[in-house]
C-alpha cells in the first residue's frame, strides 16, 4: 500500500504532458527531441506536442537531391518538364503511408487540431527558403468553392496563413479556382497535367505588385506529385504580374 501512495503522490506532482494530437495517446515522456533544425519558437512548440512515436515517424526531407522540386532522390520529372514557371520548390516530408494517414485525418476527417503540427512541419523548408530569398508575399493554392464549402477549410490556405504570421510576411490571396477539377489523387501523370490547364485565374489586381519590380512570392500547397498544380498556378500569377518569381513550399513530396 505504501508503494501505491508514493506512486500517487508522484503522479500528483509530476507535470501532465497532455495527449498527442495525432494518435491521442497520453504522452508519458516529455517533449521528444526535434530531429531537424527549426528556429521559430511557435513551430517548435507545436511539434513538441507530438509523442515520441509520432515524432519519429515523420520522414523529414533533410537534403533535397533535386534542386528544382526538392525531391530527396534523383528526379526525372524535372528533366522532362519543358516549361517551368516557378523558380524552385521545397517540401518538408516524403509522402509515405504515415503522412498520407495524417493528411487524410486533417483534410477528410477534419481533425483540425493537427493544423498547427502540419504547419510547423512546413516551417523547416520555409526557413531554409527564407534564408536564401527575401519573400515579398505568401499565397496559397485555392480550392474550388464547392469543395471548400464541403470541407469547411482550405488546408493550403490555413498552412500559408500560419507561415505568413510566423515569419511576418504578408499573405495575399492571389489566385482563385475557376474550374472544378476532379480529384487529383486518382490520376496518372499525363492526365494531371492536362487536367490543370485553365483551372486557376488571378484573383483580382493587387496594387502592390503592379510596379514592375522583381518580387519573390511563396506559394503554399499540401502535396507535390508532378508539379502540375504549382506550375499552373505560377504561370497564372506570372501572367498577371510578369516581374514575380514564384517559389513553391510544399508540405509533402511524393
Amino acid at each position, binding site marked *: *500500500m*505504501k*508503494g*501505491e501512495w508514493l*506512486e500517487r503522490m508522484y*503522479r*500528483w506532482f509530476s507535470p*501532465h504532458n*497532455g495527449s498527442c494530437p495525432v494518435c491521442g495517446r497520453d504522452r508519458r515522456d516529455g517533449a521528444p527531441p526535434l530531429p531537424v533544425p527549426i528556429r521559430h519558437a511557435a513551430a517548435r512548440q507545436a511539434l513538441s506536442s507530438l509523442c515520441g512515436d509520432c515524432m519519429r515517424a515523420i520522414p523529414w526531407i533533410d537534403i533535397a537531391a533535386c534542386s528544382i522540386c526538392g525531391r530527396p532522390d534523383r528526379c526525372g520529372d524535372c528533366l522532362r518538364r519543358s516549361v517551368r514557371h516557378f523558380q524552385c520548390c521545397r517540401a518538408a516530408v516524403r509522402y509515405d503511408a504515415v503522412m498520407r494517414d495524417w493528411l487524410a485525418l486533417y483534410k477528410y*476527417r*477534419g*481533425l*483540425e*487540431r493537427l493544423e498547427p503540427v502540419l504547419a510547423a512541419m512546413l516551417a523547416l523548408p520555409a526557413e531554409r527558403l527564407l534564408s536564401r530569398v527575401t519573400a515579398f508575399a505568401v499565397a496559397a493554392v485555392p480550392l474550388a468553392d464547392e469543395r*471548400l*464549402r*464541403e*470541407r*469547411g*477549410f*482550405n488546408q493550403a490556405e490555413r498552412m500559408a496563413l500560419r507561415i505568413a504570421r510566423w515569419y511576418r510576411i504578408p499573405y495575399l490571396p492571389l489566385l482563385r479556382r475557376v474550374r472544378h477539377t476532379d480529384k487529383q489523387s486518382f490520376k496518372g501523370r499525363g492526365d494531371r497535367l492536362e487536367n490543370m490547364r485553365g483551372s486557376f485565374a488571378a484573383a483580382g489586381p493587387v496594387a502592390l505588385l503592379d510596379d514592375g519590380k522583381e518580387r519573390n512570392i511563396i506559394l503554399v500547397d499540401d502535396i507535390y506529385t508532378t508539379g502540375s498544380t504549382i506550375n499552373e498556378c505560377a504561370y497564372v500569377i506570372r501572367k498577371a504580374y510578369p516581374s514575380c518569381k514564384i517559389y513553391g513550399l510544399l508540405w509533402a513530396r511524393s
Partner: protein
Amino acid sequence: MKAVVYVAITDEGRAYPFWTVSWETDLMFWMHEWFRLAERAPIPHAGAQWLCRLRPMLPLGAAEAVYERLKERMERMGAQRVSPEEASRLLQEAAGPGQGNDSLRKKRGRLALWGFRTRANAGHRTHSVAVDALRVADWRRLNGGGCGGGNGDADGNGCGGGNAKAGGDGGESGFSGGYAPGCGNGGVGAGADWHRDEAAKLLRAARQAGRQLEGRSLLLDEALGLLSQADSGDALRHLQLAALLGEARLAAAIEPPRGRRGLRCRRCGSGENRMRRSACASCGSDSCAVCEACITMGRSRACGLLVAGPAQMASLGHPPHDAGDSGSPLFVDRWGLSQPQLRASEAAVRFLREVGDRGGRGRDERRQAKRASAGEQHGLSGRLSRAWGRRLPDRIRRRLPACLLRLVPHANRELGKPPSRRFLLWAVTGAGKTEMIFPLLEEVLSRGGRALVATPRRDVVLELAPRLAKAFPGTKLAVLYGGSEDRWSNAPLTLATTHQLLRFQEAFDLVLIDELDAFPYHNDPMLHYAAMKAQRRMGATVFLSATPPHAMQREARSGRLPCARVPVRFHRRPLPVPARLTVPPIAKWVNRGRVPAALRKLAHESVRRGAQLFIFVPYIRHVEPIVALLRRHAGDWGLSREAIGGTSSKDPDRGNKVTDFRNRRLRVLVTTTILERGVTIPRSDVCILDAHHAMFDDAALVQMAGRAGRSAEDPKGRVFFCSAYVTRSQKRAKMQIRSMNRLARKLGFLEETPG
C-alpha cells in the same frame, strides 16, 4: 450550412417562428395549402398571411439560437395578435444583442458571439439586421412563373413605416415591404403553372424520407447516403418538407448554449470541453464549433445538420402470457441455459416487463429528480459549482480526487441525469453471457419490438452474427460495423459495434450493451448518452459486464440500479483466486538479463503440469525483451525456444500466434492487455507482471485472471499477481473474485469436488 429564420403570421394574427435550410421549400409550403393538411404539420389547417424573414442567412447554430429566443418570446406573448411590424421587430431583437448583463454580449452582439459578422455589430450603436416581410397573397399574385424574379415594387401595404425606424445602415437594415430575393431560391416554382401532382410527388418523397429516417440520427452526409440521393439540393428540399410535415426532425448537430450550459454535441452528448472552434468556410463563421469526441464518426459541427426520424410514442405489445402469474415460467428455455444463467435471465426479463408496464417516468422518479436538483441549488455543491463556473477543464478534472469531484455537480454529470431504465447483468468471465441474452431478445421480439446488441469489437460482431441468426431464424438481422453492407437496413434485431449507437435515436425497445467497460468507451460518459439516445422512450437498456465500473457497482449495491449477478461459470466450479508473489518491477531486471527466481519457478511449474501460460505485461516495449529472456530458460523447462512467444497490438501476426497458443504449439505467451478478454484457452495459467502498475485497474486484473480455468477439464487454473507491492486494485480484484465465489456457494451453484 446556413439557414433562414422567419416568422409566419397566421390568418388569426398569431405568430410562429421557424428556421429553414431550404427557404424555397418553406415558401412553397406556405403558398400551397394542401401541404398543410398533413396530420403532424406545425400549424394544422391554418394558412400564413405574412412571412417575415431575417435577410441574412445565419450559420445553422446561430439560426437555431435566434429561433429559440424567438420562440420563448412568442410563447410569453400567448394568444396576442402580432402585426408584421412587430414580428420584424421581434426578429431583429432576437438576432441583435442580448439584454443580459453580460458585458461581452453587450459589446459584440449575439450574432457576433456566434462568430457571425453582421454589419450592425461592426461598431454602430444601433444593432439591427435587415428583415424582409412578404404577404403571402401578394406573393402568390405577383409570382406567376416561379420565384426567381426580383420584384422591387413594394406595394404600400402598411409596413413601409419600419424603414424610418431602422437606424444606421440605411437600406441594408430595416424593413422593406417587397421581398428582395437575396439568396438562391431558384428551382421550385410557386405559381399558377405549378401543378398539384408535382406537389404530391414532393410530398411523397418527403414522407418516404421520413419513413427511412425512422429511429436514426444522422449527419447530413450520412442522411444523403441513406436516402441514396447524390444531389444534396434535392435531398435538402425533401428533408425540409419532411420537417415541416413533422415526419423528420432537423437540428444543428451542436446544440446552442442555453442558460449556463455551454455547447453540447447532440450526437454524442459531449460538452464544451470537447469542442474546438475554428473558422468555417461552409457557414462563414469564424468560430464554428466542432465536436472532437465523436469526430471518428464524421464531423459534428455547429453549422452541420443532424437529421432524425419522427418522434415516436409506440409501445410494445402485451407479453404472451400473464406476467402476474408467478406459477408459470417467464419464458420457455429453448437454449439449454444452466440454472445460474436461467436465474439471471429471468430477473432481467422480469425487469423488462416491469419497465414496459410502468409506461413513462413514474411519479416517484420525477419527485426524486426534483429533490436532487433542489439539493444542488441550496447545498454546498451548488455554491461550489457557482463559484467554480460551469465547466471544469479536462486537465484539472483528471487531477481531482473523486471525493472533490462529487462536490462539483457538473464536473462529471454534464451529460444529464443517468437513464432510469437500466439494468446490469453482472456475470463472471466465462459464464456464458451470450446465451443469457437470448431470452431477453426473445421477450422484446415476440412483442413486436426492436432490439439492439452492441459490442465493442468488430470481430466479436462477426462472430456473434451467425449465432444470433441461428437462435432467431425467423427474424431479420442487421449487422452494422464500419463499412458493413447492412448500413441502412432496418431490422427488428440489430447487431452493431458500440460506435454505431451514435447513429440511432429513439429506435430500440431494448439496447443491450456488451462489455461496457471495454476499450473504446472505458469510463466514457458518451456511451451512456448514446445508449439513452438510442433507446425508445418506453424502452430499456441492459448492460453486460464481468467487471462493471465502480460507479455502477456502487449503484447496484445500493439498489439504485437493478442488477442480476451470475457468480459462477458454466462448469460450476469456483473462480481461481489470484495469489500474490513479490517480484521486483520489470524495469529492474529486464535489462540486467536475469529472470527473477519466483517467476522462473512458477513458469516451470505451469509447464510441468501441462498448462499454457499467459504472461501479461503493462507495455508493448516489454514484450520482446521478456520473450528473449525467457527463451534462455526454455531448455530448463523442457521446451524448445520457439514454444515461447510474444504478441501485442502492433503485431500483424497476432491472429496466428493466438491460434498457435490454442493449438499448444506455443506454450508461453507474453502479451499486453490486448488479450485480456475474449480469448479462451482450455488449460491455462495466468501470470501478471508488474500487477502494481497504474495501467492495470481492478477490472483489467479481474479480466486477465479470468483467462485461467475456463474449461471443465481444468477448472483450477492458477493466477499470480507478480508485483513489487500490493495496491488497491489488486486487493479489489481479489475481493471481487472472492465475493463472487461466496455468492455462488451461498446460492448452491457450486459443485465442490473433493481435493
